[in-house]
């Protein structure tokens, strides 16, 4: 629509396709579109514009940015005219509100949110039922107390959090920014910024809102931003102002125009808009917008128009919480909750039936029965009072019994569990062993409700790059023109001084030192004349230029030395650029149209005529360079698979063959390889390409596809230059971590996008694969062959694994062959397996294998594999990854762990837990997971027991009160029972108790099996606990009953006895099961008992209560104390005996380890240490 030289800048971040992302920011400087390669050094006078090609990111949906924005989906922003912008449409102001409540809305909104929980609704219904006069079991106050207490605790917590948010909002909203008002820039508070206003930002300032760049201090309109607050990536990103707006100075001339842009959305890598300025229409992409929260760097100032403000900014839209998951234990617990509900209904039914029978039998006496008195004789005609007929009475009895026995369903458990998880999270976050020094990151607990799942993980799905490895790429060796320079002929100069360049008395030095091959170094230095040296020159020129790296100069303490820091999005590119620098090809400047490479002290300027960015379809990128000798060359680098298809195979056959050989040997060393090719362009070829390129990059529709076509045309008939090999170092401690996980009987699956050879070699170096392991490799190209190889593999695996079992049964036979099986399968085969009937086969096979390695898998396949396992087993799965490509897998697994590493924060944002290093998985699972599981399992059982004991005591008494739900226990006591009397110890124990020390757990990873075997919580334990509960309640109830049979005992007195007996009993029961007594545990348990005494005494000191002074009377008699003593002992003896017999004669692993922990040292080092050693490495026997 516009025939003028189109001035397009398109850049996008392919957001989630590949772990190796790259940014496209291609600039070429041409004086005129039709000019020939008029390359002028230092030209600054001519009109500049840039061409850029889009990456292949359109497959992610960015291609929509090319479409017209329909009017109803658009926002119209008039530049520098906020009044007009905002008159029709209500755009959000820039004041933000992360706080949820205000002073006035706090109460209703907070209550509304709290009542979203089922538990609270149960509480509420019970409390409401109790308010009906017919059902008033408890007094008003007592019945509302538990609910009010819980609501209050949560409200105080929410209010505090909200207060902190308010405070940070206020600080944020009152920051100042320069806004154009009446022709000059003035300070304005952030909250007052409106959409449409023009804002000026200086270097190192934070952006107040999302804005479209108009101009920057850079004459070509580049601005660098750091997006660490947005996506966690610390490298700088380039943004561009439009050509048309560059020269405008809004202070002086009025800018007329408007921007039509999409509605606010969360995609931080996408933006589409059109700008109409001075009658010209331009399209805007994600590279023209700078987002709130970013910081402007290396740019003196930038001017932009606010397009999204406040809550509509992408940063605010993205600040959402973690997804909520439900823990396995909690799901499991719900079964028992249902059983308890059945108990509850049974208890209520028993009471109702008995009450019905009693009423029926006494129906003739009820009128005058002194303790019933159905009729009111004060009237002339006696009528019934408080009596609604037999049926209704039964019904009311039922409801009343539900009210009285309400805590049978331990609603307080849900609140306790939440508190316990917060406490557990605190300890996980504070664990010094899970702090990563390198990235300065602590462990993060993003999901709060699945702590205990960490103790039951059976499958770990791990990404490779950045998870097992550091994702810190390092150039290792190269093959150039068929010659391998891997330093094998001589040692690499490891302690070499960095290559430096002296310019104007300043020494420039790359930030990272790369080990160099001396022969290659020599060749690169002097050998330009020789044929061999020329290839080396081209090769390194390609490495230095064919990238999107931006060099930055960093000051050092020594003023004469400057460091050159290569900023780029792909670690591979950085590594290659540093490598080129080490061999003397130092990229020292990249501006919009040219790059300057320092070649052994000699500066050379190359014009970047065009750049085709990396995309995941082509898997290569290319750059078209105008060289100082006026030749035009295209350099291409990319993955071997796609490169060899565009290389002219008729040329230099032997070179191609040897290069292929080298590639193979590199990848089997675990190195990442890239192939570099080049071609010289003649005039006509260049012209042809240039027109196509200009056409494509200015096209409004389908630009990405057009650009890709142009790229495919130029990237053909290449001459192979060589290949580079980059090492991705294993993270510290990965082999040990994998070994520990394997010993803990956790299956580790590695899913990687790398080549099979690379994956296998990483597998070996990370001890995932061992030499003793039999490898089953499945590479199939059709469904049929896939089926066949799966069948074969199953037969083989069966043979191998069953063989090993047989050999084990023959105890002592030294020829026992343990043949673990490792399965290696590639992405192509997985295409046929996933979502077909072969899934079943694969799972069967995989479950026989101890290791599964999937190579060349796409992000969605990763999720598919996790889903495959999740569907077929009830075992817990954990996915760990660091990149955007792992997000789907992380979300799919039961537990998602994100590595906060080099690749941004998407993985962390999607994860439940985030940490800095793979090896932290070991303390996370084996230590914290184990503890959390044990604690939570015990806590749930204990809470069931604790409440059921009390309910049963109430129930037994009801049988002696004509089934009328009278409670001898004071109503306040019965409400305080689960709030004050017994709640604190269980929470403290749930947070602090440790069955085993960290050292023991790490030393014997097998102890993790307790979680797999569900040792801390299962139905056997549940029923045992319930039987124990029954016995304890019988003792606690009937001992006082019989001791006070035929006596003058009054209800409140014996009620106090029952209260105290129950509280002491359950607290001592807990005390018996506590493993580790710290002063906090002591304080909680004994403190609760003391608090109960105080409460009981206080309640009995109120003259208005029927039980006034009861505790003092009964406490003065010895029978009371004898009762308490015998109740506690008699009730706990069975638990104690069973516990002891079980621990002593049927000890579980945990028990033995605990004894070893306590007594191991006492027995001296000799016996125990020698015996322990084999346990550490059972696989090596």
């Amino acid at each position, binding site marked *: 629509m516009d025939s003028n030289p189109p001035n397009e800048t398109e850049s996008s971040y392919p957001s989630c396709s590949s772990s190796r992302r790259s940014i496209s920011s291609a600039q070429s400087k041409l004086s005129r579109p039709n000019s020939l390669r008029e390359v002028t050094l230092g030209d600054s006078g001519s009109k500049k514009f840039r061409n850029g090609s889009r990456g292949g990111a359109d497959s992610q949906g960015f291609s929509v940015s090319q479409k017209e924005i329909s009017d109803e989906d658009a926002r119209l922003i008039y530049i520098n005219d906020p009044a007009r912008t905002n008159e029709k449409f209500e755009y959000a102001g820039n004041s933000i509100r992360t706080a949820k409540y205000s002073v006035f809305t706090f109460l209703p909104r907070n209550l509304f949110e709290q009542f979203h929980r089922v538990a609270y609704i149960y509480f509420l219904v019970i409390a409401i039922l109790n308010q009906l006069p017919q059902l008033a079991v408890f007094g008003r106050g007592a019945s509302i107390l538990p609910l009010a207490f819980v609501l209050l605790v949560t409200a105080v917590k929410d209010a505090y959090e909200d207060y902190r948010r308010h405070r940070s909002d206020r600080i944020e909203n009152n920051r100042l920014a320069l806004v154009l008002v009446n022709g000059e820039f003035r300070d304005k508070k952030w909250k007052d910024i409106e959409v449409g206003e023009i804002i000026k930002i200086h270097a190192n300032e934070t952006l107040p809102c999302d804005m479209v760049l108009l101009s920057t201090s850079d004459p070509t309109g580049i601005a660098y931003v750091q997006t660490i607050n947005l996506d966690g990536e610390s490298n700088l990103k380039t943004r561009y102002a439009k050509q048309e707006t560059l020269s405008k100075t809004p202070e002086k001339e009025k800018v007329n125009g408007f921007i039509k842009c999409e509605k606010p959305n969360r995609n931080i890598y996408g933006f589409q808009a059109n700008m109409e300025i001075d009658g010209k229409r331009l399209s805007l992409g994600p590279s023209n917008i700078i987002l709130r929260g970013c910081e402007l760097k290396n740019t003196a100032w930038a001017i932009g128009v606010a397009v999204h403000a406040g809550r509509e900014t992408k940063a605010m839209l993205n600040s959402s919480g973690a997804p909520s998951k439900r823990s396995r234990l909690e799901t499991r617990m719900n079964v028992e909750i249902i059983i308890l509900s059945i108990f509850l209904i049974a208890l209520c039914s028993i009471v109702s039936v008995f009450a019905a029978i009693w009423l029926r039998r006494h129906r003739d006496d009820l009128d005058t029965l*002194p*303790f*019933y*008195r159905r009729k*009111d*004789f*004060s*009237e002339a005609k006696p009528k019934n009072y408080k009596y609604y007929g037999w049926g209704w009475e039964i019904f009311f009895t039922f409801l009343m019994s539900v009210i009285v026995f309400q805590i049978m369903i331990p609603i307080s458990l849900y609140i306790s569990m939440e508190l316990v998880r917060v406490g557990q999270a605190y*300890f996980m976050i*504070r*664990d*010094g062993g899970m702090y990563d*020094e390198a990235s*300065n*990151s602590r462990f993060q607990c993003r999901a709060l409700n699945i702590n205990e799942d960490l103790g039951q993980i059976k499958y770990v799905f791990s990404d490779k790059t950045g998870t097992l490895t550091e994702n810190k790429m*390092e150039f290792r060796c190269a093959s150039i023109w068929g010659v391998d320079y891997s330093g094998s002929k001589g040692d690499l100069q490891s302690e070499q001084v960095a290559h430096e360049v002296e310019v104007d008395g300043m020494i420039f030095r790359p*930030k*990272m*030192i790369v080990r160099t091959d001396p022969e290659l170094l020599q060749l690169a230095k002097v050998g330009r004349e020789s044929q061999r040296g020329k290839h080396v020159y081209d090769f390194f020129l390609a490495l230095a230029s064919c990238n999107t790296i931006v060099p930055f100069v*960093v000051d050092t*303490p020594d003023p004469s030395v400057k460091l050159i820091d290569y900023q780029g999005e792909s670690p591979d590119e950085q590594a290659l650029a540093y490598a080129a620098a080490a061999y003397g090809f130092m990229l020292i400047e990249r501006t919009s149209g040219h790059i300057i490479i320092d070649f052994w002290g000699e500066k050379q300027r190359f014009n970047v005529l065009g750049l085709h960015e990396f995309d995941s379809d082509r898997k290569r990128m290319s750059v078209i360079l105008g060289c100082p000798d006026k030749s035009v060359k295209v350099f291409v680098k990319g993955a071997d698979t796609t490169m060899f298809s565009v290389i002219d195979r008729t040329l230099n056959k032997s070179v191609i063959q040897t290069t292929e050989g080298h590639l193979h040997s590199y990848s089997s060393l675990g190195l990442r390889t890239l192939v570099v090719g080049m071609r010289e362009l003649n005039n006509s070829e260049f012209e042809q390409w240039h027109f196509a390129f200009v056409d494509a990059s200015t096209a409004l529709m389908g630009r990405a596809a057009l650009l890709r076509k142009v790229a495919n045309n130029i990237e053909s008939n290449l001459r192979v230059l060589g290949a580079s090999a980059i090492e991705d170092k294993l993270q510290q401690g990965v082999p040990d971590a994998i070994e520990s996980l*394997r*010993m803990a009987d956790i299956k580790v699956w590695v899913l990687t996008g790398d080549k099979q050879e690379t994956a296998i070699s990483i597998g070996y170096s990370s001890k995932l694969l061992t030499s003793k392991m039999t490898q089953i490799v499945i590479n199939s190209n059709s469904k049929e062959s896939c089926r066949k190889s799966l069948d074969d593999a199953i037969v083989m695996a069966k043979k191998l694994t069953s063989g090993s079992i047989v050999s*084990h*049964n023959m105890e002592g036979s030294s020829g026992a062959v*343990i043949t673990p099986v490792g399965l290696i399968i590639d992405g192509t085969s997985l295409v046929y397996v996933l979502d077909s009937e072969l899934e079943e086969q694969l799972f069967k096979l995989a479950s026989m294998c*101890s290791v599964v390695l999937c190579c060349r898998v796409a992000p969605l396949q990763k999720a598919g594999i996790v889903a495959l396992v999740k569907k077929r087993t009830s075992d817990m799965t954990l996915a760990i990854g660091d990149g955007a490509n792992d997000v789907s897998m992380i979300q799919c697994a039961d537990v998602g762990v994100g590595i906060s590493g080099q690749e941004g924060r998407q993985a962390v944002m999607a994860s439940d837990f985030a940490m800095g290093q793979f090896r932290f998985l070991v303390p996370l699972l084996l230590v914290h997971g184990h503890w959390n599981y044990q604690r939570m399992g015990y806590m749930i059982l204990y809470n069931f027991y604790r409440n059921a004991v009390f309910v049963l005591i109430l129930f037994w008494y009801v049988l002696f*009160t*004509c089934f*009328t739900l009278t409670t*001898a226990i004071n109503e306040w006591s019965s409400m305080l029972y689960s709030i004050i009397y017994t709640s604190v110890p269980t929470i403290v124990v749930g947070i602090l108790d440790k069955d085993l020390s960290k050292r023991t757990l790490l030393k*014997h990873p097998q102890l993790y099996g307790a979680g797999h075997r569900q040792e801390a919580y299962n139905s056997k334990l549940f029923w045992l606990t319930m039987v124990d509960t029954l016995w304890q309640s019988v003792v606690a109830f009937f001992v006082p009953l*019989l001791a*006070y*049979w035929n*006596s003058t*005992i*009054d*209800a409140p*007195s014996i*009620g106090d006895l029952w209260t105290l007996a129950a509280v002491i009993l359950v607290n001592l029961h807990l005390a018996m099961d506590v493993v580790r007594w710290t*002063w*906090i545990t002591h304080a909680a348990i004994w403190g609760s008992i003391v608090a109960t005494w105080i409460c009981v005494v206080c309640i009995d000191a109120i003259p208005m209560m029927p039980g006034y*002074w009861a505790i003092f009377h009964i406490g003065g*008699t*010895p*029978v009371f104390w*004898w009762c308490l003593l*015998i109740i506690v*002992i008699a009730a706990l*003896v069975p638990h104690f005996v069973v516990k*002891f017999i079980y621990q*002593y*004669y049927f000890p579980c*692993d945990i028990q033995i380890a*605990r*004894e*070893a922990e306590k007594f191991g040292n006492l027995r001296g080092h000799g016996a125990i240490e020698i*015996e322990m050693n084999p*346990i550490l490495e059972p696989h090596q026997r």
Partner: protein
Amino acid sequence: MADRGGTSSGGGGNGAPELAKKSRKPKYSRFSQQELPACKPILTPGWVITAFISIGVIFIPIGLASLFASQRVVEIVDRYDRDCIPRNVSDDGVGFIEDAKANKTCVRTLTVQKQMKSPIYVYYQISNFYQNHRRYVKSRDDKQLWSPKNERSSSDCKPEDFTSNGQPIIPCGLIAWSMFNDTYKFSVKDKVLEVNKKGIAWKSDREHKFGSDVYPKNFQSGALIGGAKLNSSIPLSQQEDLIVWMRPAALPTFRKLYGKIEVDLEPNDNITVIIENNYNTYSFGGNKKLVLSTTSWMGGKNDFLGVAYLTIGGLCLFLAISFILVYVLKPRPLGDPSYLSWNRNAAGHLN
């Protein structure tokens, strides 16, 4: 940084900004690292056996002492509800008791089996009377009993809250209305035994719960008389029978203190009791008993606690002995790694 992976370490220029950045390393404290000093008790056989033996050693003497104390208590129980009805109307207890003209006096003779040291407590025992029935137990107003200001009582007292002409009843409610009204007169060898009815209620109730300026009003003025009447010139705080009755019994069979006899009774003394059999337990099939009992340090006559202590003590000794036997026969060394599951059954852990 520099210590990791050596080769990638920089020229040293980046050291300063790294240091300047605030480290987020969690501060070390024994609490946050879960390393607080702790005691980790383990149930060792020695510990368990000692515990059981000591329980046995402590419980058996306590059991014997309680049993002994209980045995020393002398108790005379006489059920009189059936026998105090004239034979001709024995089928119609309710009719007899509701007949205002009938002579309710009844004479019983009790023989003292063993010497009874003073004080001898006189109780009445009623069974099948649900003083803990929900309708009943709630039918009172503690505020009204406490102060004359709260005369107009709450609705809890219904139907005994107001008279038919709207006057408040003090004390209101079913509990007060149904107050026990049998009386006993004792004599031995024609000598009257004084029954001391002072101090039978709790001191705390007399002084703080029942107001000394609250007088009975309109009590038992309705159509249906439930039980005792009160002298409206005596404040509630001195109506000790009422106070005793108002303390609701825990169980459907209960005793309440009637008074104290403060002389010793010798064996074979015959006590003549003149009972005014007024209280209607016939309507609900409850029985009435008169109880004379001495006390011990353990309270009244009840063997249960003694037996229970002996049983538990014996059981614990038995357990201790069996654990010793088993420990001798089949000991297990504590903390022996050969008992660990993966050492016992390696086949289960192939990987």
